[in-house]
């Protein structure tokens, strides 16, 4: 603590240069924070995926449907504990820009399959009792100010409208929350039996099946058995772990993680050069001052640590400041809920960012600190004089 004024003196020696270096690091880490939140948002399905869940979809593509009758055949395969299905409904609420995922499901089986969607018992019962009942996630309910009892009209470009109706109508019977941070609470689920009865085409067809397996270690074998069961049929399947399915879904718009790492890597390399140059310049300018400190009795390792601390202080102040502002902005709300249902800065990004800031400080200060440590006092004083 007693060396803090000395550290501070080094930082404020050239205020403009310190401020510009601070700003460049600040902006870089703010970017890092936003990219961390974006990566989390795009990978939310992957990180939340159940280890014991498989997805069975049409072998050709996700938009091809499968017969609902497959459910019983999948259930009969040894090692399968439970099965339910979902179908992409693509319902539009008032305007296409009000996008949120919506799907018909089998309420009881669905809630048992996805315990991460937390619904109170009264709402569960109401859903089972209400044919047009739907449950909606907290994020979407808040977004449109929906509450239980509201009737929600949706138009579906895929499924048309029920006979005698101008659009699909659902009664909200429950609002679910996520069991943990990162659970997608933007989705809207309604009853499959109502959907099946009311739709005009592809009756008896569903989008995909979710399968719970008894032993996650046997995932590959069971997936192979499921696909084998339907091989050479008009509706061949592709079965994969839920995480891989979600990843494949996210990668439809590119390998975001790789792109992100490339951007972050380029930014940080540049910042490292800027900060390293700043520190080197600062040490060069202070040759005589460092010589004086040594003459007064500061040992070589102390001078090394002082220079390193100074470098780390700029990096940590800039880094943590940037991350902090990113966290504040991200926490204040999701700017694009229709595109990114989950949007938050995860703790591991904050911790990783802080560690990266410290590493940046150490890397940028290492060479100047080494030079300062090896400085000969008589040479330093002569150069300063």
């Amino acid at each position, binding site marked *: 603590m*007693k060396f803090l004024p000395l550290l501070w003196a080094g930082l404020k020696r050239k205020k403009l240069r310190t401020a510009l270096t601070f700003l460049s690091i600040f902006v870089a880490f703010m970017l890092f924070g936003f990219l961390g939140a974006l990566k989390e948002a795009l990978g939310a399905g992957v990180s939340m995926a159940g280890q014991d869940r498989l997805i069975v979809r049409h072998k050709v593509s996700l938009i091809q449907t499968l017969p609902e009758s497959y459910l019983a055949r999948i259930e009969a395969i040894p090692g399968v504990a439970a099965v339910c299905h979902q179908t992409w409904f693509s319902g539009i609420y008032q305007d296409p820009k009000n996008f949120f995922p919506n799907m018909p499901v089998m309420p009881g089986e669905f809630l048992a399959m996805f315990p991460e969607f937390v619904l109170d018992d009264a709402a569960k019962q109401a859903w089972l009792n209400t044919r047009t009942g739907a449950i909606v996630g907290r994020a979407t309910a808040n977004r449109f100010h929906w509450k239980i009892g509201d009737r929600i009209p949706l138009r579906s470009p895929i499924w048309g409208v029920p006979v005698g109706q101008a659009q699909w109508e659902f009664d909200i019977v429950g609002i679910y929350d996520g069991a943990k941070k990162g659970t997608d609470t933007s989705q809207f689920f309604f009853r499959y039996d109502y959907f099946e009865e009311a739709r005009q085409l592809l009756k008896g067809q569903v989008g995909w099946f979710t399968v719970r397996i008894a032993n996650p270690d046997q995932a590959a074998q069971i997936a192979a058995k499921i696909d084998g069961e339907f091989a050479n049929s008009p509706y061949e399947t592709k079965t994969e772990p839920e995480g891989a399915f979600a990843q494949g879904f996210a990668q439809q718009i590119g390998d975001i993680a790789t792109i992100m790492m490339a951007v972050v890597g380029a930014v940080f390399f540049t910042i490292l050069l800027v900060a390293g140059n700043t520190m080197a310049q600062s040490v060069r300018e202070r040759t005589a001052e460092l010589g004086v400190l040594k*003459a007064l*009795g500061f040992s070589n390792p102390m001078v090394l640590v002082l220079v390193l601390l100074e470098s780390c202080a700029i990096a940590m102040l800039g880094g943590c400041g940037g991350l902090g502002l990113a966290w504040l902005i991200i926490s204040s709300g999701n700017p694009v809920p229709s595109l990114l249902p989950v949007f938050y800065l995860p703790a591991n990004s904050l911790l990783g960012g802080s560690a990266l800031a410290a590493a940046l400080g150490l890397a940028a200060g290492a060479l100047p600190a080494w030079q300062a440590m090896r400085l000969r006092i*008589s040479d330093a004083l002569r150069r300063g004089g």
Partner: protein
Amino acid sequence: MNPSPQPLVNISRVSKTFRRSAEEIPVLSELGLAVMDGEFLALMGPSGSGKSTLLNLIGGLDRPDTGSVQIGDDRVDQLNDRQLAAWRARHIGFVFQFYNLLPALTAERNVELPLLLTGLNKAERRQHVQAALEAVGLANRSKHFPRTLSGGEQQRVGIARAIVTDPTVLLCDEPTGDLDRKAGDEILSLLQTLNKEHGKTIIMVTHDPHASARASRIVYLDKGRLSDQPSA
């Protein structure tokens, strides 16, 4: 019969040669010097005569090639880097020609620097700093930054920094070299006071006969050798 007093600074057969590329430049050759406790010694000589090199050897900033440098009970030439740093902090006060204050620190923070290496707490450090600044007549300028002080005042802060740990020896390298006559005289008077009233042992390198006249003894260094008379 009392035994004769031992010198505080005892330099014996010290040689120092600098090497630049393949060239060897001998600076000090088999040099001997003894300075008694409480003495105010002026070290004079032409540029390049090795005055500053000798001062650096006494202050543990450099090591001799051969010979011994003993200050009190310590063989300075035999200490390693870490021991030397700690020894300097305890025993040596440096006063530089160009003051060498840290521009971003106030006068009192500059004076406090050597105390950061001691075990004193904040209140004790403040007390020592105040006493040192009072001793140089700058107690009322403690919050000022170096750029707002005159050259003479900056050198006083430099002297306060040098004496704040109550070192064994004060080493002054041209302390008036960057000052006008009036400010220089004030600094020399201050050094004399520290020597006479506080018993500080002072070794001062200077070109200026006016400055050396304030010392209790003058030695001359030329071509690496010491004498009591200036060379012709």
